[in-house]
């Protein structure tokens, strides 16, 4: 190593020193410890005892674990596609070249930065079966068909759709990312397609979608990661980690949280966290494999 290289190495290490500490204490150690605990019988009160793959085996026969996984996947199946469609729809509307786009963009984006706990408070009120605005609006419409509106968060069948509905209110981030993608599509492509006689629908499927496919992919992956870990909205809207009503909103992260911090079964909770990690990785890989041939990276 030359003198200059040595100097650079010293400086590089010095500048990165905070990260060496932060990485070791707040990431590397927790990852290693969590993996170790997942093979242990461990409550913070006693030292961990190695129990092999017992936690993972127990998970296979834990009905509550499967229920929480099922609930989470159903919720993700509702909120993820709906969120992507709404976010892209709003972005397309904002990209039509009408006046006042900045005002509309601000309005659609705003809910995404409203503190989640605070937005939960309004939605609790909107979803209220008796006095809520949603049912006030739905009641006369549904009455035509002789149906009464559901109690939303109070009804096991409707609690998950309600949560998914609320999540649509916060699609602002994804929308802004879509919009930036749409604005990068060269106008010539649309003009060329139009000259070739392509209608609006064909221009959308054959120009817009391929051109923004990297952005769609990005939002899909972020969506998968986010929805599988959803915690705050459920915890606040359903009043704790029990997944009320009737465990219909007992999501994976809620069950993991209560296992770790209420039941103090830390080893089992760590095992659950690793299964979640693997699930996220598997779904990300699957989504990548399914879309990679269709993603078009221009330039």
């Amino acid at each position: 190593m030359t003198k200059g290289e040595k100097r650079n190495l010293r400086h590089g290490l010095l500048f990165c020193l905070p990260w060496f500490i932060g990485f070791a204490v707040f990431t590397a150690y927790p990852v290693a410890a969590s993996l170790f605990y997942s093979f242990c019988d461990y409550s913070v009160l006693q030292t961990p005892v190695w129990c092999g793959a017992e936690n993972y085996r127990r998970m296979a026969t834990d009905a509550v674990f499967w229920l929480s996984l099922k609930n989470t996947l159903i919720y993700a199946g509702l909120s993820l596609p709906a969120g992507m469609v709404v976010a892209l729809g709003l972005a397309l509307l904002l990209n039509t070249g009408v006046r006042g786009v900045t005002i509309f963009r601000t309005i659609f984006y705003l809910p995404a930065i409203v503190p989640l706990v605070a937005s939960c408070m309004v939605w609790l009120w909107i979803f209220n079966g008796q006095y809520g605005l949603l049912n006030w609006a739905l009641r006369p419409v549904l009455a035509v068909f002789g149906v009464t509106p559901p109690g939303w968060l109070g009804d096991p069948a409707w609690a998950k759709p309600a949560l998914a509905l609320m999540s649509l209110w916060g699609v602002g981030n994804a929308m802004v990312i879509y919009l930036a993608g749409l604005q990068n599509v060269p106008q010539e492509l649309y003009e060329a397609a139009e000259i070739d006689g392509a209608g609006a629908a064909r221009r959308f499927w054959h120009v817009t979608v391929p051109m923004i496919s990297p952005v769609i992919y990005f939002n899909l992956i972020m969506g998968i990661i986010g929805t599988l870990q959803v915690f705050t909205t459920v915890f606040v809207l359903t009043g704790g980690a029990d997944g009320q009503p009737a465990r219909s909103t007992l999501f994976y992260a809620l069950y993991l949280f209560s296992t770790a911090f209420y039941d103090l079964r830390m080893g089992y909770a760590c095992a659950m966290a690793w299964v979640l990690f693997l699930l996220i990785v598997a779904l990300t890989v699957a989504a990548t494999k399914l879309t990679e041939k269709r993603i078009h990276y221009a330039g």
Partner: protein
Amino acid sequence: MPVKTTLGRGVAYALLLALSVVFVFPLVWMVSTSLKPIEQTMAMPPTWVPRGADGSLQPRWENYRAALATMGGKDGRVTFWTFLGNTLLVCGLGVVGAVLSNAVIAYGLAKIRWRGREALFAVTLATMMVPFPVLMVPLYEVFKSLGWIGTLKPLWVPSFFGGAFNIFLMRQFFRTIPEELSEAARIDGCSEWQIFWRIILPLSKPVLAVVALFHFLWAWNDFLGPLLFLTRTETFTLALALQNYQSQAGGVQWNHLMAASTVMVVPVIVLFFLTQKTFIKGIATTGLKG
């Protein structure tokens, strides 16, 4: 895809307006409910604006005074101001920590050529994949052994030691600054720290602003962290205090709850309007170049 026909524009406008009403509505409803007397909050059909006994528009600002005083419990020992103080402390120190530490680290990864830096960067990116639940239990234990459980420290101290996403964001930005500037400074005898502090940082204001803003919002909104690490009401941040207020025994009046919620939302909205450009650009770049 610009719409050219008049009909198309009309439809686009109609949709945008209708959707705007839907999106703004919950916020308007929050503010409106916060100013109503209790009997009007549960009126069916709803009253759209707060009204007095004679039917005239009459906002009840005293709801705010009541909500701020009772947010930490009916005895009024802990009030809103304690929660605001805690939140501002976590946000303020967190922002300082996040901006400083990530800038220093990103400089080491972007502007100094040393053996192992690419490997470190790869590892840094990989840590972004790890979901928080994996870290949760051991982190709790780390903070417990440091004696930090029940204090605000777990919520701001870690920000002084870097975070993968912000390191990534800043490194990408630093790399766009021409190397010649650093070289010229080096020839003039500047130390590495002087180059960082006097040349690179002043040129990087946009990315510093994005990191500061995102961290502030994240800390202001964070619920899980405070839920995990705080134990006593007087240490609660606003997010946790608001949830605690809503779930307190005996319930809480809707108008007071909405007043407390509004107070938590307003600063965020003001901040957003003051920094809108930085904001939207920041989000768009994280999606496009990330």
